[in-house]
């Protein structure tokens, strides 16, 4: 495919962004179905950042805005809803990208003239439009007016289909300053728009390069990425936010309990006392250990033990570790 646009982009130059089929990375990332140019463009910026670590456009945020096409007074008008720009985002630059269709007829100068006979000179075809006029207006979200004229541009129409970009930073900054986050672009090439133009993957789009001053806050990722529960309310199996359906969930749950009965190292024959139970006041050290060695009592059978002091033994049958006599003596002495 054609070379990727060289970004960060000097927005003043007309960027001859050739339309090219998105790479397999774009298709994989953006899913099947027709990729519009804005999605491919954003993916290129993402890949560029990952390759070189260069901040896109000098900031830490790039927002794209797709156009919504409407016909107003028989003119094609594109609406851009800029309301998703966050208050903490300081706009650095904004660019308007549009695709100029190849002219429907070759222009006079493009056709080599071969007069068929002396008497019939070349019939010069009427020149097609050579310029495209774009009027930008901004209006508040629910305003009923056509909006305030923010800027006008006359763009040269190339002789073949081409993506072009223009810097509209001042227009977007002024509109945002006034809180008018609905921007319209009326493209007028002087031709009558036959019927209602339909929206195509080649619809114009806007890129806004910004520096999010809040992105270094401790939990900035939650502000933009941690959202409502993606499953709509009333979902038959309401699940915790973000937890996938357990049946479809390929993740393996790992058991938490320890394998087999717990091993402990209690000394056989001694009357176990819960480690933390406070000793009764009349107990003294020597009473605990009357002689240097205590006679080993045969351990009561597990059942009796359990019956005798139900609460003092852990409910879980514990495995007694066998120690040799020498170890036992050492332990007692200690």
């Amino acid at each position, binding site marked *: 495919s054609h070379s990727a646009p060289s970004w960060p982009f000097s927005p003043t130059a007309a960027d001859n962004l050739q339309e090219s089929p998105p790479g397999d990375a774009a298709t994989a990332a*953006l899913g099947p179905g027709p990729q519009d140019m804005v999605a491919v463009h954003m993916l290129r910026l993402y890949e560029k950042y990952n390759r070189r670590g260069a901040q896109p456009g000098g900031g830490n945020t790039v927002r794209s805005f797709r156009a919504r096409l409407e016909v107003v007074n028989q003119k094609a008008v594109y609406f851009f809803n800029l309301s998703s720009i966050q208050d903490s985002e300081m706009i650095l630059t904004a660019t308007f990208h549009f695709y100029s269709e190849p002219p429907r007829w070759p222009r006079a100068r493009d056709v080599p003239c071969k007069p068929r006979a002396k008497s019939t000179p070349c019939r010069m075809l009427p020149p097609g439009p050579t310029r495209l006029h774009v009027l930008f207006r901004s209006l508040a979200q629910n305003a009923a007016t056509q909006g305030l004229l923010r800027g006008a541009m006359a763009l040269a129409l190339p002789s073949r289909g081409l993506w072009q970009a223009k810097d509209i930073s001042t227009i977007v900054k002024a509109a945002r300053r006034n809180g008018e986050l609905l921007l319209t672009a009326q493209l007028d090439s002087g031709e009558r728009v036959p019927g209602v133009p339909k929206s195509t993957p080649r619809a114009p789009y806007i890129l806004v390069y910004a520096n999010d001053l809040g992105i270094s806050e401790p939990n900035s990722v939650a502000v933009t990425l941690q959202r409502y529960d993606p499953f709509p309310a009333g979902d038959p199996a309401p699940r915790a936010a973000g937890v996938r359906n357990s049946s479809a969930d390929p993740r393996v749950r790992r058991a938490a309990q320890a394998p087999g009965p717990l091993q402990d190292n209690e000394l056989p024959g001694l009357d176990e006392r819960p480690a933390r139970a406070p000793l009764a006041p009349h107990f003294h050290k020597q009473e605990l250990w009357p002689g240097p060695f205590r006679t080993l009592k045969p351990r009561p059978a597990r059942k009796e033990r359990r019956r005798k002091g139900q609460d003092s033994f852990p409910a879980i049958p514990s495995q007694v570790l066998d120690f040799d006599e020498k170890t036992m003596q050492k332990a007692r002495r200690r």
Partner: protein
Amino acid sequence: QWDEPRVCARRYLKVDFADIGWNEWVISPKSFDAYYCAGACEFPMPKIVRPSNHATIQSIVRAVGIIPGIPEPCCVPDKMNSLGVLFLDENRNVVLKVYPNMSVETCACR
């Protein structure tokens, strides 16, 4: 994992956005190596855990036991890296944001 060092160190952790339910709006990456910090900051702390001066003092106070209840310093991320994330905003427009401190480069006792 059991034969990992006891001392404070970086441990491997791969985060899959599908596991935390963000895959509906995160286009790329699908997952990334985030890592995490875990391990002991016991006295005496080896140089490798790059203790701050305060952590050194705290671990001595704890070891000497002058004041009961002083915990040992914590094993936390020291150097971290950014991550570029491509996602859809609420109007389903594509956004690229470069978030700082998304993955751990080194750990230290603090």
